[in-house]
């Protein structure tokens, strides 16, 4: 897919995510919208090997989404990638639905690891990276982390260990939207200078605009050339990206759009696609 088509898919991810959250009357719009472009590049930009007909295909690449509350975006991407019918995702968060509030690998094809409790996913990804190396497998292990979860001590345990084990098959994105639940990260518990922190932990660090498809593509290409180190792509994003009234708004972390909000948001996003 070309960058225009990838962007188009990203906006479809955004639209479907908002529809899911609206229907469920709960969920996390802000952090779903901020990773839509990253997901789209991974699934539709030719970066990940996967087979929706055979989700456990041994040679597939792996994506672990550590910020499990961004489930609407993950389900929407997997639906668009053909793992299941995208309409099914509208049962999101209702009793008996496969589409749990936080991603659940036992219930949804294509979800590699269930997350939701922040600060686990990078450890899980490192385990899969070490396993791939033991198997002499060329597969790549991607992880998407939130910036807020880097406040968890366990994140830094994993960051330290990934560098120690020189996990060059591990590529982590940080969705650097600068907002967490209570407010701005730098006010709640500052993370800057984030690149320097990763560098000091012996990671290869790439920074880019997390909504620029070409920049994400080239950051990934660069990451594949990293030797003897894991790579982090610090993707500077906007929480709620794509919808004017949600963009960079703390209040859209975890509330559902009402009918009017949804109509407005979808109109804006459809104008983009």
């Amino acid at each position, binding site marked *: 897919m070309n960058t225009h088509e990838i962007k188009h898919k990203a906006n479809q991810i955004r639209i479907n995510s908002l529809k899911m959250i609206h229907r469920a009357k709960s969920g996390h719009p802000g952090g779903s919208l901020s990773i839509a472009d990253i997901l789209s590049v991974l699934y539709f930009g030719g970066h990940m090997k996967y087979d929706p007909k055979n989700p456990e295909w041994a040679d597939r690449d792996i994506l672990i989404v550590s910020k499990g509350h961004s489930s609407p975006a993950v389900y929407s991407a997997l639906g668009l990638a053909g793992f299941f019918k995208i309409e099914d995702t509208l049962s999101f968060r209702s009793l008996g639905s496969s589409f749990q509030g936080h991603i659940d690998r036992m219930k949804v094809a294509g979800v590699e690891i*269930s997350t939701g409790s922040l600060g686990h996913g990078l450890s899980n990804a490192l*385990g899969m990276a070490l396993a*791939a190396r033991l198997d002499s497998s060329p597969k790549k292990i991607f992880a998407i982390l939130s910036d807020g979860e880097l406040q968890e001590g366990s994140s830094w345990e994993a960051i330290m260990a990934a560098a120690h084990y020189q996990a060059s098959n591990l590529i982590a994105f940080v969705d650097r939207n600068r907002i967490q639940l209570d407010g701005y990260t730098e006010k709640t518990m500052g993370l800057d200078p984030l690149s320097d922190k990763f560098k000091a932990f012996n990671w290869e660090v790439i920074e880019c605009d997390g909504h620029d498809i070409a920049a994400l593509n080239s950051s990934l290409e660069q990451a594949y050339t990293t030797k003897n180190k894991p790579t982090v792509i610090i993707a500077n994003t906007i929480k709620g990206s794509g919808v004017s009234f949600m963009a960079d708004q703390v209040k859209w972390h975890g509330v559902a759009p009402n009918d009017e909000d949804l109509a407005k948001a979808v109109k804006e996003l459809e104008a983009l696609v």
Partner: protein
Amino acid sequence: MGIELKAANAWTIGDKLATREAYGKALVDLGDQNTNVVVLDADLSSSTQTKLFAAKFPDRFFNMGIAENNMMGVAAGLARAGKIPYASSFAMFAAGRAWEFVRNSIAHNHLAVKICATHAGLTVGEDGASHQIIEDIAIMRAIPTMTVIVPADATEAYQATMLLADHDAPTYLRLGRAKCPVVYDDSYRFEIGKASILKAGSQVTLIACGMMVSRALEAAQALALEGIDVEVINSASIKPLDSKTICESARKTSKVITMEEHNIIGGLGEAVAACLMESGVGADFKRMGVKDIFGQSGDAYKLLDHYGLAVSDIIHETKSILKRSN
């Protein structure tokens, strides 16, 4: 995968060694038999005995440093990718510090990581209360789908370690630091979900796990000299619990005493109590364990005695339960 037990690791009844020593030996035998077996530790490999595996299979051993949460998360990832991970630390940190990683990264992901925690209970000894976890059975058995095994001796610890390779559920294996007498020879076969009757008897049922099994046997011998006939059951498999064996014995004796190197809250005793009540088996009942207080530094065996888990305490409780009239 048909794990083969090595005759070389047959111990003789009465030998004294710690369950962690048998664990270390089993890992090496497993590593020989299955290249998917991987071992993780958190800077305690010479204490947990995973150093034996590390020396022989350095590529499949991961020292994760003093970072137990990450260790459990990495073990989950390894399992998700088809490996058979054994993750070890002291029980205080494997179960205590890393509980939420065990719960969410491992159990909620339905990943069959083997959490093999050594230095559990009071018999850590001199290190004292900060290291003497007496809550681990409770917090581990509370996790949905978690198997919990507390081996009584080296033979059982060796076999449990080997069997777990094929066991398709997350498992907590509780191991000890202190040497304890071997109660099983090579003819024994441990099974997950099965209790073993070490001595048949008719008047009182003693149900023990871990270090307390050999003490229960010792008490039973002393009681026999006084004409008191007790049954001794080793309930190494705390979850799943062998309710059939336990209930049959309780029906026969109508008097049950449980004993464990653990807080009386949430451990073997409460598991047995719930099992008896729900099965409608009425019995006089007594839980022996640490009475909801923290431990302290001291010699391992003296600590057990100090906290009411001496052989003389078992004898005393047996006599008192016999005096109770239903």
